[in-house]
């Protein structure tokens, strides 16, 4: 028999013996490990939730592109324009686009004008959001197609009456034939559906409130850049959003400052717009994440410490109750190290089982919590690995002193104990 299988066999024996010893006092063992269970469960729950939120935030920011700057009309954000009085809030306009184009590093500019309209094809004659966009808009906002095509430059130039629908809106439209090629009426005008977007999911969550629109329920039509009823003019700045793509993400910082400056200049200092810089959001998200991790780490550390003290307490009781057993084992040949390993093994088994229970409990809690707060949950391997390391570490820490105490007992005194 080779040495490896001998030590494997001994490892199994140690575990079995540890299990036997713990099973002697089931309730006591269970109670002593509760602290670890809750510490690990808390960490796994919080990490799963944080990880889910982080992933979602990163994905959204990533979709926006780290090389982009989004300018939004701030008034339009807060006040729904009252069209009955023909009142439109001051928005972004052609002069803004022209000024932004002068900023070095700006590669492309996409823009959108948002308004609300009635879509008779919707059974409930609901009001929907319509975005008039130029053809760059889809790429700039990272929108993806489920079927069909986006609005093209040709559509924009030739004033084609075409539209692209968000995924949920497309589902809700009850037109005969439905989907691609069907005709929908936006503010009375007929538009042919040429594309349907991929479902994005309600992105209106706490993590990223600024960046997102409910694209799933929006309709997109070409924004005609010249003449006509919806033409862009300097006198009627009516754009609600401008998306600026930079040639590289390094110049984002100075470029966003420049954008802010020129827009402010165009408005005589009135800041009725807001800048969304995904790169900054990402940095902010990372910073928040770091803070969160520190807080989480401290909580985990404290609860682990408390849990560990509980385990140490029980292990000390175990050692003193089994003094005689220690003497017997020494008499039949156990070295000090055998005794230490035995009690250390018990402590680690105790905390590892607590850790496993904590992972199960924490994952369950995260799923339930995620369901109720409609938050994306991500149960990945590393919180589980972390939890395992944590609980084994706690076992080592809590078991070391009792194990050494057991190992250093005088064999004769231990045997005479009782």
């Amino acid at each position, binding site marked *: 028999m080779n040495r490896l299988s001998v030590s494997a066999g001994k490892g199994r024996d140690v575990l079995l013996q540890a299990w036997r010893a713990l099973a002697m006092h089931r309730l006591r063992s269970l109670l002593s490990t509760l602290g670890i269970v809750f510490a690990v469960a808390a960490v796994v729950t919080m990490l799963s939730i944080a990880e889910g939120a982080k992933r979602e935030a990163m994905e959204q920011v990533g979709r926006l592109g780290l090389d982009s700057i989004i300018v939004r009309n701030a008034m339009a954000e807060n006040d729904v324009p009252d069209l009955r009085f023909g009142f439109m809030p001051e928005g972004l306009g052609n002069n803004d686009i022209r000024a932004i184009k002068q900023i070095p590093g700006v590669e492309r500019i996409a823009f959108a004008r948002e308004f609300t309209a009635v879509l008779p094809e919707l059974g409930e004659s609901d009001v929907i959001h319509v975005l008039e966009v130029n053809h760059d808009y889809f790429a700039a906002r990272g929108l993806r197609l489920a079927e069909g095509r986006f609005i093209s430059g040709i559509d924009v130039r030739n004033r084609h009456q075409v539209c692209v629908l968000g995924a949920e809106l497309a589902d809700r439209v009850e037109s005969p034939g439905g989907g691609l090629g069907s005709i929908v009426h936006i503010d009375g005008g007929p538009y042919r559906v040429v594309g349907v977007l991929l479902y994005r999911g309600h992105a209106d969550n706490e993590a990223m409130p600024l960046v997102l629109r409910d694209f799933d329920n929006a309709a997109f039509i070409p924004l005609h850049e010249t003449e006509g009823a919806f033409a862009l003019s300097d006198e009627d700045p009516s754009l609600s959003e401008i998306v600026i793509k930079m040639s590289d993400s390094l110049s984002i910082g100075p470029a966003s400052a420049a954008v802010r400056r020129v827009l402010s200049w165009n408005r005589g200092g009135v800041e009725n717009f807001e800048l969304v810089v995904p790169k900054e959001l990402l940095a902010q998200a990372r910073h928040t994440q770091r803070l969160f991790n520190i807080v989480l780490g401290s909580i985990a550390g404290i609860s682990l410490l408390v849990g560990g003290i509980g385990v140490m307490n029980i292990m000390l009781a175990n050692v003193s109750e089994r003094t*005689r057993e220690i003497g017997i084992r020494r008499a039949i040949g156990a*070295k000090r190290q055998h005794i230490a390993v035995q009690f250390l093994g018990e402590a680690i088994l105790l905390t590892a089982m607590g850790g496993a229970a904590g992972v199960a409990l924490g994952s369950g809690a995260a799923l339930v919590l995620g369901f109720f707060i409609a938050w994306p949950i991500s149960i990945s391997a590393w919180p589980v690995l972390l939890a395992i390391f944590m609980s084994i570490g706690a076992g080592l820490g809590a078991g070391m002193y009792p194990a050494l105490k057991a190992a250093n007992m005088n064999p004769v005194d231990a045997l005479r104990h009782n």
Partner: protein
Amino acid sequence: MIDTRFSPLILAKGLCKRYPSGDAWVRPLQDADIKVYPDQFVAIMGPSGSGKSTLLHILGFLDRPDKGAYCFNGQDISLLEDDALSLLRASRVGFVFQTFNLISQCTLLENIMMPFLYHPEPPENAREVALIALQKVGLAERRMHRPDQLSGGEMQRAAIARALVVNPIVILADEPTGNLDAENTRGILKIFKEMNENGTSLVVVTHDIEVARAAHRVLFINDGRLNE
């Protein structure tokens, strides 16, 4: 090389052991000498508190004498470290106690196999070896029982199986029949004699005349000394 057949297995001279007791000292061993040759069955008798257990603990390397020399199997024990003594206990010595001292949370078989946990070279078929040892003491069918499901005589037989499972060269027994009736005592004695005939030396502390009669030599401990 020493021919171990003719040199003593246990050779101790001038052993002293004392414990503080209030202002004075208890001196269970004062200049005690003992010699045990291979294959011998030695009984040690003496009044309670005379130092019999103390002597046995020293002979089994569980304790060290305050003074005196002890050679086991030609090795000077005073030169050995704690781990080396553990190794000797694991492979060369078997202990049997008055109170059996089986480990209560383990089955009989696990108890019998336990010495192999600490043995330097456990056999590959440890389980079979343990079963054979249990068979020798007539407890093979009880292998899955816990110690508290056994009678005193059975527990002591199991304890003997645990002592002999590693095939030690000497068994040190501390009043092995002290808690047993006459019939069980005879059973234990029979096992001891068999072991002795198979070449295991025995040092047995006892109050029992029957046990002393079965021994080759009887030593009496008095005032910390041993007399034939």
